[in-house]
């Protein structure tokens, strides 16, 4: 068959095919290069001193323990606030809403939110949470900004998994005399835990990689605090610390060390979401 087509056609096919392979190789090489380069430059500089101390101007040492703690605090604070709102909104859309207009409005809002760049979240977060709510430049203000950013993610993943809960489950529970809230609490929510967990993992990924929105809301201090004090005071997350060390202080070794930690976390998060996706697919297949 292939011999019977004309020369120009054959050349065209070969060129197109070559372009496809080339692009794919480029993308793969790029990913591999990013990972390996960052690890190669960063891992040698990960020392116990870096991981378990705070920066000291006296001894001229840099430690990222405060940044690690801040990152953990901000992840926890964000998830604690965004989960009820996001899951609740998804439940409303999927279980309660009867008015087409309201559903469209909420979905449109969620889509708009997911398209807004993080620098704008940073600005508005600064105006609303830092100044208007007078939280000051603090992890809490940063976390609340991230809540709005991650709301669409949690809503979407929860909604997707709510849609896979079979209608018969709900009908069965209703038939047994359960009220709507009871059905949601005892039947619907437990079956869509996977989707909620996926949303959490995705959100953690976004929080870890966020910098622009946190720069003006959470600031860049490097102090070790407890959870409650930490939320009330300014602090840099790992990503913000990376930016500060690389861009403003020229400490590339430290920046690469942080980058390699973030890189490993990114890979882990992707493996986890992939695993969750397969888990959900398998369950829906059954």
């Amino acid at each position, binding site marked *: 068959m292939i011999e019977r*087509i004309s020369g120009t056609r054959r050349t*065209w096919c070969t060129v*197109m*095919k070559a*372009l*496809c392979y*080339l*692009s*794919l190789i*480029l*993308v793969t090489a790029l*990913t591999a290069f*990013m990972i390996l*380069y*960052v690890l190669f*430059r960063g891992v040698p500089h990960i020392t116990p001193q870096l991981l378990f101390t705070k920066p000291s101007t006296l001894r001229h040492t840099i430690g990222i323990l405060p940044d690690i703690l801040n990152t953990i605090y901000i992840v926890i604070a964000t998830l604690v606030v965004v989960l*009820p*709102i996001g899951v*609740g*909104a998804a*439940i*409303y859309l999927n279980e*309660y809403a009867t008015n087409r207009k*309201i559903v469209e409005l*909420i979905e*449109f*809002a969620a889509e708009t*939110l997911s*398209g*807004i*760049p*993080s*620098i*704008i*979240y*940073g*600005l*508005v977060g600064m*105006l609303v949470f830092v100044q208007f709510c007078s939280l000051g430049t603090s992890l809490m203000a940063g976390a609340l900004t991230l809540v*709005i950013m991650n709301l669409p993610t949690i*809503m979407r993943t929860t909604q997707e998994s709510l849609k896979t809960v079979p209608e018969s489950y709900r009908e069965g529970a209703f038939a047994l005399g359960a009220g*709507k*809230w009871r059905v949601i609490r005892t039947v619907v929510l437990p079956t869509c835990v996977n989707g909620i967990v996926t949303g959490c993992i995705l959100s953690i*990924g976004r929080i*870890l*990689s*966020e*910098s*622009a929105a946190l*720069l003006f809301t959470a600031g860049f201090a490097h102090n070790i605090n407890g959870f409650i004090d930490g939320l009330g005071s300014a602090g840099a997350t790992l990503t913000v610390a*990376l*930016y500060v060390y*690389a*861009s403003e202080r020229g400490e*590339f070794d430290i920046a690469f060390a942080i*980058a390699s930690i*973030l*890189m490993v976390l990114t890979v882990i*998060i*992707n493996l986890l979401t992939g695993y969750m996706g397969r888990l959900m697919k398998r369950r829906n297949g059954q």
Partner: protein
Amino acid sequence: MNLREFIDQKGYRHNPRRLMEDIIHMVFLILGLVAVGSVLVITVYLVISGLPAIFRIGPVEFLFGTRWASTAAEPEFGILPFILTSIYGTAGAIIIGVPIGFFAAVYLAKMAPKKVRDAMELCIGVLAGIPSVVYGLVGMTILVPGIRILFGVPDGATLLAAIIVLAVMILPSVINVSLTSLQAVPREYEEASLALGATDIETYFRVTVPAAKSGIFTAIVLGIGRAIGEAMAIMMVAGNVANMPSIFKSVRFLTTAVASEMSYSSGLQREALFSIALVLFLFIMIINAILNVLKTGGERR
């Protein structure tokens, strides 16, 4: 109607469970409306804090002024350099990133063995998940010196470096969205084309791709949105000088203009930064609107 009549009408007195259910319904409705409220708050705040400076400076001078000297003795606030840089930078990223993403998506959708596709899914996920400051860091240490040496310019932190970083950063969304739309093309289209004697490659590019064109277009618009909104990565590689854009000059984008001066700004300068954010927001809203049109158009088909 007073409260008592309302309670009687709803039958809450005899049926407390219904009262509970209705309260819970209201709670969920409120949670659902948080997203709507957030969009409103963001819009209102940006407009309120962004408009005054535009009128104080003068809309024409602000939008079409070519000089930005916010801290000079006689400050000038012209943001045309930022607008043009954002447009050129985004266009450059699209020109480089979209073809690569497009061909990779065609390969993954149509030719890749399952193993390769699974591996690439992880690759693309990682590429999408890498924090933008890490892209900035790698750009700073490889691209910037590379461009300086390769093209013999005094400083490698240029628009070109920013374009390359942006091109890489939009790849995952371009690939993912095109991939989904290519996979959604009915198998019958391709079978018909193959039966008419077209080769498989011809089928993919002459039948499948045109059938998926609205999805691929969506991918491009999404890429534009990502590129125009990116701040930190390009702040680290673009040099951050308010020049009119040129490929080998240090430049400042709309996003980086806001980010770089915010921490020490005051007075009219600060208000002007909010105005820049408002302009950026308008760009994003236009892109969102185009995406919406594409989506509803796609659904109708």
